[in-house]
């Protein structure tokens, strides 16, 4: 027992010594060395793989012969260096020479682990490098489109903008193209970063954030509009349903019945003007208040003063009674009329009012001349014919 223990101890000692000395010794003193940084790799089906082999010698320059001594059936191995297919390398001590080993799979390969052995030999020296290639079946190509907010609400002219995430779930890089089907009246654009795109590369396992913008180019009726966004690459495609919910909005317009926003008004006299309030929007306008900003001293009255409700597409004619100030000068003035519905924007129209002054004083002037002529006639009657 004691002997056994002593033997074991001595063995352990030798072993540990050997371990502690061996690596340094082997590294420094092995006359021929064949290494690679990554001796085991994983590749996909039908994918080539290449190893970067390094050959070095320690004592004297040698010509090293390289050979792939073990290769799975059907596989082909090629050793390349300096752009040529090679069989041997010339190595000087202290210098490492790189050789590229390329392995190609046969067509009908199964997934599994394959062993390859590369042997380097020179002048009786020999070095071996076992390599391991694991062939793995790849993820099938797949694209997914998703969004957090598939339904967006907006006005009849607002732009609907959706944040969409596109993910390439497969292991293959692909170039995807985008398309959309939208109801009439929408123009759909895709934005990646700050640029409009319709097609872009999406690498394997990559996620891209897209902005889908649906811009209406006509005024839309209230309602829900479905949009379908499709992304396609070869046979792979994914689609996403989005909704644009358009809420109606009243839009007022102010015009005159004949479209002419000008009028002639006598100073100090009330003149009725016609004003047409039209709802060109998509929802009824309620509680329209009519107001005006007029020059100082003018009187502007509306009849009616407010409109309870104006359905979309309807119009109402309002009589505006304009009375310029008594001392208003002749000429053109700006009269701004406004219609303010509750809960929507105010619309205004500028009327150009030409003020005409009274012709009463013109008559006075004529009378003045008549009086002067009368004076002459009187003088003729009294003193005439001499």
């Amino acid at each position, binding site marked *: 027992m004691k002997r056994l223990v002593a033997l074991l101890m001595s063995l352990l000692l030798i072993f540990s010594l050997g371990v502690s000395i061996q690596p340094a010794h082997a590294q420094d003193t092995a006359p021929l060395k064949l290494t690679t940084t990554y001796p085991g790799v994983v590749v996909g089906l039908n994918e080539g793989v290449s190893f970067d082999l390094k050959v070095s010698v320690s004592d004297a320059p040698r010509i090293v012969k390289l050979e792939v001594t073990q290769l799975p059936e059907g596989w082909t191995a090629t050793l390349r260096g300096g752009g040529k297919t090679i069989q041997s390398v010339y190595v000087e001590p202290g210098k490492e020479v790189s050789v590229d080993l390329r392995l190609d799979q046969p067509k009908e390969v199964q997934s599994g682990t394959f062993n390859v052995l590369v042997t380097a030999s020179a002048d009786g020296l020999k070095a071996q490098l076992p390599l391991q290639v694991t062939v793995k079946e790849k993820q099938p190509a797949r694209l997914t489109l998703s969004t957090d907010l598939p339904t967006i609400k907006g006005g009849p002219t607002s732009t609907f903008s959706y944040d969409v995430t596109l993910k390439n779930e497969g292991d293959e890089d692909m170039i995807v193209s985008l398309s959309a089907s939208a109801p009439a009246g929408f123009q759909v654009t895709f934005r990646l970063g700050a640029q409009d795109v319709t097609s872009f590369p999406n690498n394997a396992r990559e996620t891209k954030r897209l902005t889908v913008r649906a811009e209406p180019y006509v005024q839309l009726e209230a309602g829900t509009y479905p949009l379908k966004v499709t992304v396609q690459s070869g046979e792979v495609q994914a689609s996403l349903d989005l909704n644009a919910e358009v809420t109606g909005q009243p839009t007022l317009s102010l015009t005159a019945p004949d479209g002419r926003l000008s009028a002639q008004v006598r100073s100090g006299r009330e003149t009725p003007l016609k004003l047409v309030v039209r709802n060109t929007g998509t929802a009824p306008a309620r509680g329209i208040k009519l107001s005006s900003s007029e020059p100082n001293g003018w009187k502007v009255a509306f009849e009616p003063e407010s409109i309870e409700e104006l359905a979309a597409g309807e119009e109402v004619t309002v009589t505006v009674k304009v009375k310029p100030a008594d001392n208003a000068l002749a000429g053109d003035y700006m009269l701004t009329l406004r219609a303010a519905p509750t809960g929507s924007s105010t619309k205004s129209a500028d009327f*150009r009012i030409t003020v005409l002054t009274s012709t009463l004083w013109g008559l006075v002037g004529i009378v003045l*001349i008549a009086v*002067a002529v009368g004076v*002459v006639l009187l*003088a003729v009657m009294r003193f*005439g014919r001499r």
Partner: protein
Amino acid sequence: MALAERVQSRREGSPWTGLWAVVAKEMADHLTSARMRILEFLILLTAGGTVYVAMQQIRSAGISEQFVYLRLFTLAQDPLPALVGFLVFLVPLIAIALGFDAVNGEFNRKTLSRILSQPIYRDALLMGKFLAGLFTLALVFTAIWLLIFGMGMIGLGVAPGSEDVGRLLWFLLATVFYGGIWLALAQMFSVVFRQPATAALASIAVWLFFTVFWEILAGLLAQALHPIQFGLAQEILGQAQLQMTLERFSPNTLYAESMVALLNPTVRSLGLVLPSQLQGAILGTPLPLSQSLLLIWPHLTGLIAVTILIFALSYVLFQRQEIRA
């Protein structure tokens, strides 16, 4: 009484018989006289010079506006004032020159009795002389007016608009009656004074008074009648108003203001304008001709009425005058 009745009975028929014969004769005299030639030359020179300068300016500045023909009359370039500036004092001179020896000239040449021995009443003689003067003025101004239009058409290559023509026709009318006042005045002095030189001097004195002194006097009078005691806006306004009213007694002011309103369509008022009256106004827009006319209607009718009244006065003076000498 019996004599008066007899005299009254002799006064029958139209007082204006022979009026047109007098007018024709007088116009012929006016148009051939050396005096008229000098005046015509003077006014032609001014019109030609000022309009040429105005045209150069319009062309070089590339002024393309609605009323380019009006600018021909109103554009000035230092040292030459605009044509209208000249007209304010040239028109009275011409009118005075035409009228200052109308009656006393005949009297001094002893031709008055000879004319009145014809079947022509004094009425027709005085009226004929006045109308002949007025027609001569109208003829001269119309000729110049047409000349300027012709120059404008050649120089600018644009046809005048109807608004241009309308405004300038009214301007012509105002000019003729502005001359009419001074003509009637000169004729009145020719009735009053036996010496033509005295009559001419008196007319020139009145002209000088209104051209130079009346404006100063109006300012002084306004200050005296409407003194500013507390510096209130109302007081200042009242004084300015009074001064303006006083100045308008001068035919020069009336004529100048009507020219401004007629030839500058953007003028909206000739009086004082409060800022509140201009609120909301679109400035720089032209008034229609009818509104500009309304603006100067008092001026225009004033000029015409005063012309007629001065004529009436000289008529009364002439009729009451002893002419057998």
